[in-house]
């Protein structure tokens, strides 16, 4: 596989895994999340080239064992994201963090239009369009498109890179640091604190990496 395609695939899978880890771990989702984490742990060569590796590896370690006690995992999820009374729960939604005069409806509308431009609609699983898992899943989708394009249509791959960067800056990178910071302070967040650290590190470094790729010339090796 072309190195740039491999990188896009790795980034896409990482976005997907972080997003999936921040959804309610029901009987259907938990086994596939654990499976994905175990699979991703098998190949660390590429990921180790990037600075998000250490927090990400800690996160994979934790996710790979997440099915040991599903009950306590679920109560940690509910405590952290839905009900924790002190200072309110860590709402995993963009509209809870971004103000600037935008109401929740506006943020969601903007996102749904953005997804629709790529031919995507909400799956009807109940998460709103500004849920962290949905936004990261969209990043994963864009990375997948990029990975597929590197072998056939390089200009399309470049366009994908541009869209990834624009979406990342406009959405996840804007509010994820605040979300992760709140998660870090949440009492008894358990594994979700580790996921939050990994998400923060990954988004921060992916934003840098996309900036680096955007300024580099496309030239030959």
């Amino acid at each position, binding site marked *: 596989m072309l190195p740039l395609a491999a990188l896009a695939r790795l980034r896409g899978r990482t976005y997907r895994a972080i997003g999936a880890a921040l959804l309610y771990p029901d009987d259907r989702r938990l086994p596939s999340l654990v499976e994905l984490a175990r699979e991703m742990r098998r190949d660390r060569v590429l990921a180790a080239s990037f*600075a998000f590796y250490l927090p990400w590896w800690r996160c994979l370690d934790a996710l790979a064992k997440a099915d040991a006690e599903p009950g306590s995992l679920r109560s940690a999820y509910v405590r952290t994201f839905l009900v924790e009374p002190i200072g309110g729960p860590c709402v995993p939604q963009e509209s809870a963090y971004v103000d600037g005069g935008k109401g929740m409806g506006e943020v969601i509308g903007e996102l749904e239009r953005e997804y629709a431009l790529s031919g995507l609609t909400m799956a009807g699983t109940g998460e709103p369009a500004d849920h962290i898992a949905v936004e990261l899943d969209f990043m994963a989708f864009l990375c997948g498109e990029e990975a597929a394009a590197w072998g056939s249509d390089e200009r399309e791959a470049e366009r994908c890179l541009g869209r990834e960067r624009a979406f990342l800056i406009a959405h996840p990178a804007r509010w994820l640091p605040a979300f992760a910071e709140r998660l870090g302070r949440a009492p008894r967040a358990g594994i979700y604190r580790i996921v939050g650290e990994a998400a923060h590190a990954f988004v921060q470094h992916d934003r840098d990496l996309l900036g680096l790729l955007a300024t580099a010339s496309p030239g030959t090796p």
Partner: protein
Amino acid sequence: MTGVLIVACDDLASACGVDPNALEAALRMRSGAVRLRTVAGVCGDARALAAAVEGEAAAVLALCAPRLTRGALQTAVRRAGLDPLGVPVVSLRARCAPHPPDVAVARAETILAGAVARARAFRGSRPEQVRARPTRLRSRRSLLLADVEYEPVAAVARARCAAMAGCALCVPICPAGALVRDDGHVSLDRSRCDGCGACVAACPREAIEIPAYRDEELWAEIGALLAGADGALGSRGIAFFCRHVELSGEAPGWLPVVLPSLRLLTPVWIVRCLDAGANAVAVLECEICVNESLRAGVAWCGALLGAIGADPYRARLVGPSGLAAPPPPAGSVHRSEPTFLGEAAAVLSLVDAERPSDGAELTHPGSPFGRVSVGVERCTLCGACAKACPTGALALLETPSERALTFDHACCVACGSCERTCPEGRGVVGVVRSTSPKLLRAGPVALVRDEQARCVRCGAPIAPGTMLGRVAALLGKEHAALMPTLMRCCSTCRVLAGEDHPTTRTMSPTGEVPLVR
């Protein structure tokens, strides 16, 4: 004590004249829990390196000279589970090979002891403190062939930052223009920061840090370099240099401390080294890093040494050939326990060691301390300067009978905020760069004090006499009739008595007094 693994190249003996076995024994004596593992060809083998470091809590790489890119070294260390910023890489060939065998081993041992101390002191890094180095990537396709190199960048801790109080000393200092002040906060544009550390040196509140170059991390290395008997090393000097310059040639007696940029270096660091027993401190000239303030700061160190009767040559900026001669021999040097001292304490400790008397005041453009003076006749004790002072060197002290403006020389960084904010205009508050051991020792002293005029009704302080005098002058003859009231009653009682604005007097029938201003 954290166990530290030193991964050493098996060529050290032939390439650098350092026998690894002798090295390990010496380091155990000196640095406690240290293991040394020689690995064949590790200078150029990322896989072997990762395998050797795997699972360790802390590590140091003792290489002849790395043949891997920095990015590849970082990847290998990361793969083994360690933060690359916390794993010092020591190139021993340039540092030791030019020396006779016994000196080479002593140097390797000392330099590695410094690296071990630094690896132990490392406090980790947060995602926003690390950034991919932009210059390395020439084309997208080359990205994965030459690993991305990461470098530490500065981060501002808002909880410590005094921007809300008006401080922005770091903003104009940044050569990259990476710091901006908006809505009361200073924030850093990571894409512009190149991690030089000028802002770290400029911040009077220690609110900015660069991972791996925090005070305690740097000091751990310097302390270890200076600890222990002289032996084969002879007189010992600290040579500060930046990543733009490489140590070359023999440099006998000079122990290198590498900084991201010399802009991180405040003059007090030089004082700390001298106080902890360095015979001399040299700062290696670099076209990129050296600016007027660094020159002035190093010159101040020399002047301070001169003022206390020591050799001013023990602190200086040097060119590439400046390290050819060893540091001057001991002479007046003492070697204290290398504990980290604050700015004023470090200066006083050096002064005390050399000349235990108070020492004269030294006025110098490179002084890291400032001395504020206030024109007593014109100061109204309004306290605007104290409010603007980012370090709390100026403070307004209020008791029922007195108001005083106090000044603590040890905290003053000569930023001039007080000078600029004084509402009485130019010339009332003045700052000069100067260092006075006597004042450093004295703690806060009152610059201006005045009795408070007290309210005749309730006894509360109204204002200092000087301020009332100033108000009287401003009111002039036309409104002079107001003055007796102003001087007699506090603002609350004036309102209650209806002397300010009669319409606001609203006594409630129950006797409660709603205060309307």
